[in-house]
């Protein structure tokens, strides 16, 4: 019985269904193409579809982490996609124009400038939201729209290609695992430690749940809100470096296009409410992985990429439904009736039915 406690806590943490969804997706892939799970070690690198998922998912994960904290304060940041484009544009333009475009110095200065600019953009978002009190969705819409324009100005409307080994490491390099995923994991650990080992997480949640009560309790509500926008923009900046580094080019039009939507989805799939308050970093990470696994699944199964979005939609609907209190209650009732003797101390409603509803999701995804 001692093992029951952590299990219960895990069940009530809301991480169960995202995890089930990932496992189901991976299983479906493995069934269709057994080599999917294979890993190869070659020249000190790890290769395989799983590694690709991590590598390609890293930018979304990073942005989703920033988004998660913003959403926890009752906000939202639509501008991250534009920030991705600006970050890549600044770095590549600087490197391309540097006296020695292949030098480490050019890469480092370029990336430093890009991140500094992203921090300024985050300050701008935070200023609109926290200082002026504009609704976050509108405030960040400003930069979402203007940001790509800024990126176009920086690149002169061209796709700028660079050849710089140091810059290339960020998005395409390997240290056994892809460097990009190592960065994403490092940021995740950093955020988890900073928010959960200190009181920052509590203060962020408090501001998200009741801003006025938090202010009257002496919290620096404005500073906290401001800070999360800066953090989100810096995360987007790093993601922008990864994306442009991976293709050695800055594409102001397409880099990070719609990535804000993926990030918001990842946060929601991970069980954080858009109404703010309680947030889950682990859930967010799982959410980002689900989205990336799904994209990879579609490609690896040879399904036309145009339909990817439809599959995303289906999975998102399924996961969100499974998290809805009403659906959980209904499922709980069904399984209770089916199983002869329900556990006496289990909580009513919800997520005690591991066996039931995973089947349908997988079937829908793998149908064609």
């Amino acid at each position, binding site marked *: 019985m001692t093992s029951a406690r952590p299990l219960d806590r895990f069940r009530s943490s809301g991480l169960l269904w995202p995890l089930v969804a990932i496992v189901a997706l991976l299983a479906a892939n493995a069934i269709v193409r057994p080599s999917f799970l294979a890993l190869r070690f070659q020249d000190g690198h790890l290769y395989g579809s799983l590694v690709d998922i991590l590598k390609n998912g890293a930018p979304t994960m990073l942005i989703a982490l920033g988004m998660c904290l913003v959403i926890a304060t009752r906000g939202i940041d639509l501008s991250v996609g534009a920030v991705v484009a600006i970050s890549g544009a600044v770095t590549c333009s600087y490197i391309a124009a540097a006296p020695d475009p292949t030098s480490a110095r050019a890469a480092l200065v370029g990336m430093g400038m890009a991140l500094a600019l992203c921090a300024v953009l985050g300050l701008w978002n935070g200023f609109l939201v926290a200082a002026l009190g504009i609704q976050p969705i509108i405030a960040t819409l400003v930069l979402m729209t203007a940001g790509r324009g800024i990126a176009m100005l920086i690149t002169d409307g061209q796709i700028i290609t660079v050849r710089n080994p140091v810059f290339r490491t960020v998005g395409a390099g390997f240290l056994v695992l892809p460097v990009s995923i190592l960065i994403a994991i490092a940021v995740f650990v950093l955020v988890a430690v900073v928010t959960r080992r200190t009181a*920052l997480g509590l203060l962020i949640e408090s501001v998200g749940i009741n801003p006025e*009560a938090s202010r*009257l309790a002496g919290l620096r509500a404005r500073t906290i809100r401001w800070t999360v926008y800066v953090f989100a923009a810096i995360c987007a900046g790093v993601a922008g470096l990864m994306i442009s580094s991976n293709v050695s080019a800055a594409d102001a039009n397409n880099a990070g296009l719609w990535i804000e939507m993926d990030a918001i989805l990842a946060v929601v799939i991970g069980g954080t409410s858009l109404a703010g308050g309680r947030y889950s970093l682990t859930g967010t990470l799982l959410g980002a992985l689900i989205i990336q696994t799904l994209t990879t699944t579609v490609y690896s199964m040879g399904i036309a990429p145009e339909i990817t979005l439809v599959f995303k939609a289906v999975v998102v609907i399924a996961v969100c439904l499974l998290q809805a209190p009403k659906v959980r209650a209904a499922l709980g009732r069904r399984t209770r009736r089916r199983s002869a003797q329900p556990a006496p101390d289990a909580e009513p409603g919800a997520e005690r039915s591991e066996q039931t509803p995973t089947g349908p999701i997988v079937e829908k995804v793998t149908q064609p």
Partner: protein
Amino acid sequence: MSVDAKQAPRAAGRPPVVQMRGISMEFPGVKALQEVDFRLFPGEVHALMGENGAGKSTLIKVLTGVYTPTGGVTTLDGQEVSFSGPAAAQDSGISTVYQEVNLCPNLTVAENILLGREPRRFGAIDGRATRARAAELLADMGLDVDPGSVLAEHPIAVQQLVAIARAVAVDAKVLILDEPTSSLDQDEVAELFRIMRVLRDKGVAILFVSHFLEQVYEISDRMTVLRNGRLVGEHLTQDLSRINLLSLMIGRELGALEELERLADQAGEEASAAPVLRATGLGRKGSVAPFDLQINRGEVVGLAGLLGSGRTEIARLLFGADRADSGEVTVDGKVVQLRSPRAAIASGIAFCSEDRKGEGVVADLSIRDNLVLAMQAAAGWARPIPRKTKDQLVEKWIKALDIRPANPDALVGRLSGGNQQKVLLARWLVTEPKLLILDEPTRGIDIGAKTQIQKLVAELAQKGMAVLYISAELEEVVRLSHRTVVMKDRAKIAELDQHATVDDIMRLIAHVGERTEAVAG
């Protein structure tokens, strides 16, 4: 409706319109109701009595379909019913006005009254007819409110009456009023009671919940008493004396009130003349006229006045929640700039807002997190309070203030009003403030918790804390305070000493503009 509506209050011969049998309601870890029976007759005002957490609100929510009970049967007009939600209950003729105004502040008064039932024309809402119908309803209630005005522009009291107008707008068989009078002044209460009597005589069954005993005795015909989620009795109001009712509700002897008086007297003698806070010419345009105020160590200063007289405004200025545009404040002799609540807290000032839900507790956080929030905010995010210290503090204050449930992980939003208030108080007490500002700390909470909180205030003062105490209940202010500041029309009009009586205050407030006489002493 029946012909003999006049004798409706003693309608024992008629079948009840609502009958609930064996109602149980369990939340995870909490048994809110256990096998409660309840009946409600047409043409009566029925008071539902009980302490905080006794299950009154839960019973009402079961009756109105907000909760589905875990056991028991409800019948309406003899038919068994099970409502899927408040809308279904309303369609069957059960209308509710909840404790906190649940309207849309950004819509007009007329839209709020008729929301979901707007008169339609060619499928679209007929704005003119909506306003006309609402104006009619408001006129029936004798309320002078422009139906086209936006609800948020009106004070809470008017919003409350609008909520009642909304409930009356459907021809309800059963009207439930949960703490409708907690933000109303005398005249408004009289108005409400007039309307309640009219409805009762029409045969409407009215369920009335209030913590004001005198009001309950004035208006109700019958009462049901709950304690700790169980039924402890149903009585005709005329057959149950106040003292018997109290002992039914509380389940223990009432010695605390006398002890309280004694404590207040003692503290009075010990109140020193060392000013903790001194405000000179402090004011804010459109909010409160410049005033002087001094609060000494170990002293309770009461702030008395009608709703909207500027009581809360003073509290907010002293706490930095609003910025003053004139005057200065010193704390312990040093001038302080109260630019924000944070600055005020740093100077040792604490403030419990009257709006517990909106400005007080953080509903989705646990008792533990709520309790340490102010202390943690003062310490800064980088210096988390160690888990052990937290647990000790939380355990100490849950015990000291008798917070229920005594579970540190319980979400504060699930607690009853009185317990939320205690958590809020504890949040400030852990910061050991020099001056504690309490704005309506006993509003909407039961007698037991009320007495506990008043006693606590007296004890804190005795230990040397300065307290600014705001309450609409003048007797409470007079009983607790060493000095009473009287407010009227957003200005301080007088300051009375310990021997002030409720009559003195009433007289002061009643005599407009005669401020020269007003200095008692």
